[in-house]
């Protein structure tokens, strides 16, 4: 095939247009010129451009992320590596991270979501962990928008198609629909892996003259960022645009996991790094930079899927299912044997050097020779202007229209997009493979529970974000996001340990957006500190905008906790006939920014419920103690839709009716649908009621008896009275009904 390759001569003609097409500002380009003392060639320019891209350099977010609490007594590795590592006793470590794949999923939902799952798994097993659970946090546009169903279909099939095949259970997640995502959906995937604390692998290359191995799939022209580079410059048949969407191969990923773990059980690996965004470029530079060494690669040795690939293409390709590693000298054959056993491509493509430079050879010519330190040290680090989001008015329940028909209101809310059952989604995910899933989306519960294989302990995992609160008040909303994950872990009796995050925002060059970002981080960080609940990994996704319209600010958080004894945990499933319902936490009837307001009143205004971190901690610690002392049958936190929805969800999961009574003062709609924070609904045996209430009082914790469990109806005095079965059917029907018109279209 007659592919025109870029010649050295041509590359010396770096025009301002080419610089701009690479997303580099004139100032940034000047730094490159200063550092190199000459013009870069096209390969070098490409490498600088991806390393200094927002995605790799975090240039708009770095200084703000630095404020996060990142240390704690169980933290083995905080942000800065492929994933965070925490200690869960007995020599076991949990390694986890969340990442976005928003843009690719909008372009090609199936492959975009699938490769998102593949990418986050690699971040985890590259550190020596066997992936044991997947989660996902999805935001789609309005259900009625023409593109939404197709995106839901593709994304869900893609997540399932990848995770199911690799054989890692997808145990939970969250799904929102809102018009703010019509032009920019969010697909955030989280992976949790299990390793031994004494066998965690890092990415810092060490030593000089050590062999560098390339393993996995061959390199193709997938997802080359040069999208910005007119493709006509690269090939002659210009109507065949090169694919910019990566295609995933879960089969290879599965082999890669097994092969890497097999080699990791020996002492052959010095350093290892997956090739994620910006592929070979960022993996080699990160390994070299962290280890303070140089790297020399012979690009002719890189396994290639297509003919005539240029150095530029090889360095920028985002082909999936690839890893780079530094192997101990003398262990080369062992590495070859393991990867060949698993039928993976493997090649020794270079070695570490003492030059501190990245040197690339292609067809016996030097095609890149740049110092590595500036790529990292001189990466732009901007203090973008930001303005604080203006405060919204606090809305009193008494000033909000009160429905005249509570049955109808309950049904409207239970069938609203963000409350309705997501069974249609999670039944497409294998939740049981590996046979350690104790609880998953199946129960509609708060946190998934995954047993540590061969032990009697488990990790609890949750993902949460309430974008409407963050939009209303980034600071309070940021606190709320972290608090909700902490609460969800608490609900199952876990000790919350640490979080990962995926900060999805609009264009950071707009001060209002940057204001949301800064405000949310401030709130999140305060909550982290209040709970001693550090951030150990994360990801930032900016520029989520279409036609100047930014998505609602969506800092999704994934929380992980430990249940050290599986004899003491709770879910929302266990409520029993005759139980008493106790509500822990204070209810003021907060309807601002609530689901009631949006679904019944079509209003999205008002300040969001504030989070009292001290009360939150007090209440949670108490609930956790009750679970561990086996004083409760079922627990569920109050979140979207307030007490009424919490009670319905508990009733659905436990398959028994509930009767709410004993409202506190204030309007009924505020009592039932208000979204005050820091609250838990407990179902407890009669004889436990008094001790629980009096201990709460002693600790200064607000607790109310709010009803009973039993029968086949869902009732609230002076408000609704509907059949459990009927309400459940409607709760279950909304999403399948929405999808039914396209249901069978996914004939891939």
């Amino acid at each position, binding site marked *: 095939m007659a592919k025109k390759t870029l010649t050295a001569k041509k590359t010396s003609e770096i025009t301002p247009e080419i610089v701009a097409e690479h997303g580099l500002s004139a100032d940034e380009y000047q730094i490159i010129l200063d550092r190199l003392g000459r013009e870069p060639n096209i390969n070098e320019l490409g490498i600088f451009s991806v390393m200094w891209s927002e995605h790799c350099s975090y240039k708009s977010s770095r200084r703000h992320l630095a404020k996060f609490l990142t240390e704690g007594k169980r933290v083995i590795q905080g942000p800065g590596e492929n994933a965070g590592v925490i200690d869960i006793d007995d020599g076991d470590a949990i390694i986890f991270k969340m990442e976005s794949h928003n843009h690719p999923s909008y372009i090609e939902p199936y492959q975009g979501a699938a490769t998102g799952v593949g990418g986050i798994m690699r971040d985890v097993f590259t550190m020596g962990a066997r992936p044991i659970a997947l989660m996902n946090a999805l935001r789609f546009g309005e259900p009625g928008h023409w593109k939404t169903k197709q995106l839901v279909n593709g994304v869900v099939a893609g997540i399932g198609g990848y995770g199911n095949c690799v054989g890692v259970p997808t145990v939970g997640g969250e799904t929102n629909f809102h018009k703010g995502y019509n032009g920019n959906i969010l697909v955030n995937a989280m992976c949790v892996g299990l390793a031994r604390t004494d066998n965690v692998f890092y990415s810092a290359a060490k030593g000089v003259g050590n062999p560098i191995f390339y393993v996995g799939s061959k390199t193709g022209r997938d997802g080359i960022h040069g999208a910005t580079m007119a493709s006509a410059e690269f090939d002659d048949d210009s109507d065949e645009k*090169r*694919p910019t*969407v990566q*295609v995933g191969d879960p089969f*290879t990923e599965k082999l890669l996991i097994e092969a890497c773990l097999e080699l990791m059980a020996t002492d052959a690996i010095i350093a290892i790094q997956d090739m994620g965004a910006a592929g070979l470029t960022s993996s080699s530079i990160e390994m070299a930079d962290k280890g303070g060494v140089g790297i020399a690669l012979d690009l002719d040795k890189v396994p290639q*899927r297509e003919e005539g690939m240029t150095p530029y293409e090889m360095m920028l390709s985002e082909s999936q299912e690839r890893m780079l590693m530094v192997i101990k000298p003398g262990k080369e054959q062992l590495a070859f044997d393991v990867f060949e056993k698993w039928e993976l491509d493997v090649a020794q493509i270079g070695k570490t050097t003492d030059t501190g430079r990245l040197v690339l050879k292609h067809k016996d010519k030097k095609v890149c020779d740049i110092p590595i330190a500036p790529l990292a040290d001189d990466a732009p680090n901007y203090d973008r202007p930001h303005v604080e989001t203006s405060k919204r008015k606090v809305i009193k329940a008494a000033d909000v229209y009160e429905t005249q028909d509570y049955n109808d209101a309950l049904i409207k809310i239970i069938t609203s997009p963000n409350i309705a059952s997501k069974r249609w989604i999670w039944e497409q995910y294998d939740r049981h493979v590996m046979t350690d899933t104790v609880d998953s989306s199946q129960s509609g519960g708060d946190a998934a529970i995954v047993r540590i294989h061969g032990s009697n302990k488990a990790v609890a995992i949750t993902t949460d974000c309430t974008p409407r609160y963050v939009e209303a008040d980034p600071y309070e909303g940021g606190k709320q996001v972290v608090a909700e994950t902490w609460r969800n872990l608490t609900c199952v009796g876990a000790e919350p340990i640490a979080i990962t995050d995926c900060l999805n925002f609009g264009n950071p060059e707009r001060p209002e957006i940057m204001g949301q970002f800064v405000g949310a981080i401030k709130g999140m960080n305060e909550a982290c500190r209040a709970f001693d609940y550090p951030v150990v990994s994360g990801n930032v996704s900016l520029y989520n905008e279409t036609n100047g319209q930014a998505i609602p600010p969506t800092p999704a958080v994934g929380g992980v906790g430990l249940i050290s004894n599986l004899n003491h945990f709770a879910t929302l499933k266990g409520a029993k006939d005759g139980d008493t319902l106790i509500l822990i936490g204070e209810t003021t009837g907060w309807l601002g920014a609530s689901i009631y307001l949006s679904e019944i009143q079509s209003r999205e205004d008002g300040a969001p419920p504030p989070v009292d971190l001290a009360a939150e901690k007090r209440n949670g610690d108490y609930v956790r103690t009750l679970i561990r002392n086996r004083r409760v049958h079922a627990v569920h936190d109050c979140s979207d839709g307030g007490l009424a929805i919490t009670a319905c969800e508990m009733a659905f999961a436990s398959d028994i009716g509930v009767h709410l009574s004993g409202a506190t003062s204030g309007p009924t709609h505020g009592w039932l649908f208000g979204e005050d924070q820091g609250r838990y609904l407990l179902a407890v045996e009669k004889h436990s009621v008094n001790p629980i209430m009096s201990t709460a009082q002693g600790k200064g914790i607000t607790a109310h008896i709010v009803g009973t469990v039993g029968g086949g109806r869902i009732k609230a005095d002076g408000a609704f009275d509907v059949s459990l079965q009927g309400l459940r059917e409607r709760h279950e029907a909304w999403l399948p009904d929405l999808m039914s018109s396209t249901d069978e279209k996914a004939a891939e």
Partner: protein
Amino acid sequence: MKALVYVGLKPGVLDPQGRTISRSLNDLGFDEVTGAFQGKVIELNLKNSDEPREAIQARVEQMCEKLLANTVIENYRIELKD
């Protein structure tokens, strides 16, 4: 009237399926196979119509763009048959 629609991956798109098939044929002793690609054929039965062929072809093209092919990663080709 029938329309045959052939849908295949665009050149350059990873095709793990094809690779696996070809390798497996080699394992079974079919050494002459040096590569394999798998695509779809969709056969459509169409109501008879008096419209000119080009109009029918254009309709089927629309079906491809809207549903039958994923044009981000796939190419298609249409054959009309009486």
